[in-house]
């Protein structure tokens, strides 16, 4: 922009309408309501179309961000969605759950002044706008290659590989252990943050493209990878990190102590909150403590609140270190989740019927900075406190389930049970087997799982083309 044309910079991010906290804490409907077309256009117009856009460099799948913002600013939503979908096959999901504040928006030139473009909100708007149109555009399909690929796990990594490979002309089958496709997007992230209808729509799109979707099929049990390879030319493993960790403290086998996985799965996949319409109820608790500080912990605490409980987060460090997205922490605070920072659970205390009735915790203080400059929490002797409660949800992390490693000889497994795979290609120690997403990195993010899927799809396609 030349001096003459310099216009007043608009640093005001357009707020996205939300359900008010006092209303939303009693329902499971989506918290954020999304931009109107007018708001989306206004917000997109703030982008100054940088010559060297620093936002793109910090997007794990390199979406042409100014490209789609320009289209939206011009009111060309069809053009916008095309640019977006060129790099991201799940924009309605990413627009909702990606940590944009740590990625594209963090490096937007307006970030320092607090006016970074709300890229995620516009992405979400475009994807939702497209969904409201009668039919989404179907891509031109190349001739069939005659090659077959099996995908283990129907989460974001597996679905990305499936979408890319079918568009390269290969035959694709996804084998999913649960009765629904979508991975954590359906069984983990709750309805109020990511409506399941959105994930189902993306899955249906893949089905329409011709991907075969097989549910209730546990690879390693129903059939091993080696037996699948007798029929398929290649396998991609995107089985996620679904094995929950516990604190390993006394009382963890009491009734009422859940892993985040179990708690959220009962709620999301089995629709526990709609009991008796759905069969698996979630016991209603009065006081729930959630141990942890990530997105998973926030989701559990906010779900407990919606089920009518007093809900508290117990976290060993201070607020600044919370690994959850800031937006979700603020949402939780507004809704009334209680936060106990610098607090460590020591044991769970049970009643005479084997149900948890209290948690004993110890307060922590931050010690001297270590070599990396970080201050580690250290317990304060004599600071023990006991909170009465009737449920605990442990949300401190997950690792990959050992089943695939144990049933696939020669597949190299890392210390934490993760499959070892090349970062750029997803190739594993075994020929014809690729892997990506949480099963390789440990619990990470949707966009990183999709990015890994994209790299792997390219590498599998190269391999199949060379046969």
């Amino acid at each position: 922009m030349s001096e003459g044309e310099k216009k007043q910079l608009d640093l005001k991010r357009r707020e996205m309408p939300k359900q008010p906290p006092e209303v939303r804490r009693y329902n499971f409907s989506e918290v954020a309501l999304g931009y109107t077309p007018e708001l989306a256009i206004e917000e997109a117009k703030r982008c100054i179309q940088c010559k060297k856009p620093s936002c793109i460099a910090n997007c794990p799948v390199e979406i042409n961000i100014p490209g789609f913002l320009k289209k939206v600013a011009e009111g060309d939503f069809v053009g916008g969605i095309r640019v977006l979908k060129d790099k991201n096959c799940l924009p309605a999901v990413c627009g909702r759950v990606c940590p944009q504040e740590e990625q594209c928006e963090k490096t937007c030139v307006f970030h320092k002044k607090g006016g970074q473009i709300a890229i995620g909100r516009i992405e979400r708007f475009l994807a939702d706008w497209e969904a409201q149109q009668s039919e989404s555009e179907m891509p031109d399909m190349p001739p069939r290659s005659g090659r077959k690929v099996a995908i283990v796990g129907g989460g974001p990594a597996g679905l990305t590989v499936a979408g890319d490979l079918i568009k390269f002309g290969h035959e694709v089958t996804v084998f999913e252990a649960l009765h629904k496709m979508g991975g954590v997007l359906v069984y983990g992230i709750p309805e109020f943050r990511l409506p399941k209808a959105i994930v189902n729509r993306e899955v249906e799109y893949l089905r329409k493209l011709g991907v075969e979707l097989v549910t209730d099929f546990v690879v390693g049990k129903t059939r091993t990878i080696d037996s699948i390879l007798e029929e398929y030319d290649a396998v991609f493993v995107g089985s996620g990190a679904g094995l929950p960790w516990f604190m390993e403290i006394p009382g963890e086998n009491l009734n009422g102590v859940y892993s985040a996985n179990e708690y959220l799965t009962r709620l999301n996949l089995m629709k526990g909150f709609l009991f008796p319409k759905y069969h698996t109820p979630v016991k209603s608790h009065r006081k729930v403590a959630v141990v942890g500080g990530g997105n998973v912990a926030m989701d559990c605490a906010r779900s407990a609140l919606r089920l009518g409980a007093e809900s508290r987060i117990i976290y060993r460090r201070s607020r600044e270190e919370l690994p959850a997205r800031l937006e979700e922490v603020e949402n939780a605070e507004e809704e009334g989740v209680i936060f106990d920072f610098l607090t460590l659970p020591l044991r769970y205390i049970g009643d005479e019927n084997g149900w948890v009735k209290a948690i004993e915790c110890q307060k922590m203080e931050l010690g001297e900075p270590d070599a990396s400059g970080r201050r580690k929490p250290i317990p304060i002797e004599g600071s023990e406190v006991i909170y009465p409660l009737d449920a605990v949800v442990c949300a401190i992390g997950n690792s990959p389930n050992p089943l695939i490693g144990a049933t696939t000889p020669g597949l190299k497994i890392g210390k934490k049970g993760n499959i070892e795979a090349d970062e750029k290609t997803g190739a594993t120690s075994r020929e014809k087997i690729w892997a990506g997403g949480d099963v390789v990195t440990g619990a990470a993010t949707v966009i990183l799982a999709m990015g890994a899927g994209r790299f792997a799809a390219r590498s599998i396609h190269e391999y199949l083309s060379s046969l």
Partner: protein
Amino acid sequence: MNLNSVSQILDFAIEKEEEAAQFYRNLAAKMGQQHVGEVFESFAREEMEHKAKLLAVRQGNMTLIDSQRVTDLKIGDHLVEVVLSPDLDYKQALIVAMKAEKAAFQLYQGLASSTDDANLKGILLTLAKEEARHKLRFEIEYEENFLREN
């Protein structure tokens, strides 16, 4: 057990390091998952490094340095004891190690408090600190891998 001189104490400590290494090697051999076996093998190697260091001290080629205070993160203290079995995982392996190092620390601390000889007390406390340092190294590994609460 005669611990009436520095060299007797060092011999005892060298033997303890060897025992610890053997304990980890035995576990490594029993593990069902190869990558967990490798974790225990690496713990055994660390004990052998300690043993080598103590041998060097006994031969007069090295002195034990007792400078910094060792932080006790107390991460292992409240964790339940791991039942040893072939299907342990990395997390449990670290708990086993934290608990073992804590026990070794307490052993030297106890021995130190049972002697009035300042010289012997000094060496026993230094050995206790070495074990505390080793425990801290496992605590940090545990914290960084399993207490990110994410």
